[in-house]
């Protein structure tokens, strides 16, 4: 895997469109998840994705460690996304994850594509999680490998060691939301979120 990735970066830098396409296919989901996890609208997320790929392109010859490509992309996308949020002035600078979601801009409407009721329930429960839990789960369910954790740590600006325990708490919160929606367990409105308090 690692050798593949190293040679893909080298081949793309040498002008191999196929190698570039393979890199895009491998990491497009990651870059998208970083932008969406920071609550960007679909249109802004598309711009952030494009500029992130253009940045990679102009830096292909400078990537020191192709093994850290996912982390490099995640860091770049995060920086661009936060810049876009500041430009939009939708959020206080200190808390980029409290953005105003433009859900109406999100194609396609989830009701139309999630045909099974339980899938709709899961999606709605997910949307009730804290922004941070949503961002973390988006990244970790996408790529639960070591490389995926490293990229998620870069995207979330969190130590990699705290991701596992936080993932468990976020999944537990997700399950409680699901149970609450089903009338099992908790019946009252708010379900504790379980994002660890900042120190």
């Amino acid at each position, binding site marked *: 895997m690692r050798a593949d990735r190293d040679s893909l970066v080298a081949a*793309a830098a040498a*002008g191999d*469109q196929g190698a*570039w*396409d393979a890199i*895009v*296919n491998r990491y*497009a*989901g990651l*870059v*998208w998840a970083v932008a*969406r996890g920071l609550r960007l609208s*679909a249109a802004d*997320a*598309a*711009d*952030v*994705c*494009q*500029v992130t*790929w*253009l*940045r990679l*392109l*102009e830096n*292909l010859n400078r990537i020191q460690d192709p093994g850290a490509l996912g982390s490099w992309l995640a860091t770049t996308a995060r920086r*661009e996304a936060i*810049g*876009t949020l*500041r*430009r939009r*002035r939708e959020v206080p*600078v200190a808390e980029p994850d409290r953005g105003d979601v433009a859900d109406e801009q*999100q*194609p396609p409407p*989830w009701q139309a*594509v*999630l045909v099974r009721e*339980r*899938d709709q329930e*899961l*999606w709605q429960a*997910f949307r009730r999680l804290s922004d941070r839990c949503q961002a973390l*789960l*988006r990244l*970790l*369910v*996408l790529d*639960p490998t070591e490389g995926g954790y490293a990229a998620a740590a870069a995207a979330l600006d969190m130590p990699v060691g705290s991701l596992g325990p936080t*993932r*468990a708490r976020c*999944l537990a919160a*997700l*399950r409680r939301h*699901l*149970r609450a929606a*089903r009338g*099992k*367990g908790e019946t009252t409105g708010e379900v504790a979120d379980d994002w660890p308090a900042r120190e």
Partner: protein
Amino acid sequence: MTGPLENDWLDEDRLDEDRLAAELARVLSVADPVPAAVVDAARHSFGWRELDAELAKLVADSRLAAASVRGDPGRLLSFQAGDRTLEIEVTRLDDRLRILGQVVPPGPAQVRAEQPAGTLDVTADHLGRFTIDSLPPGPTRFFCLPLGPDGAPVDAGIVSEWQVL
């Protein structure tokens, strides 16, 4: 289809974390997929690779400054490559951008605003100043080719890092 695996996925202690994560991955890939246009744009961006110009790095961006004043005139960007600098002021008017640029050291230059959707050529005057009146927002870079006294490019020029404007 209500086999035990299908049925029990919500049941409290039976559902292990990885299974819930896998269900969530599937639902996310359906409810918020990477748009095909975004993947296409990423693939096509490979065409922007070839360039002999020196990369001018972003060294200042008013958007990233700590204090932002309400009603400020615009976003100021500064790109640098060696002893050359490109100063860009971006003002937003409705859904178009107005660009005021300054090439340093001052002097005539060909300037091209490059965007994935197209390019726009302007000329910097003998003081290195240039204006672009109506640019669509989005990922943009500036390619700057300084001209000598004979009107010919003095070298391969500089190109700014890509920025979302």
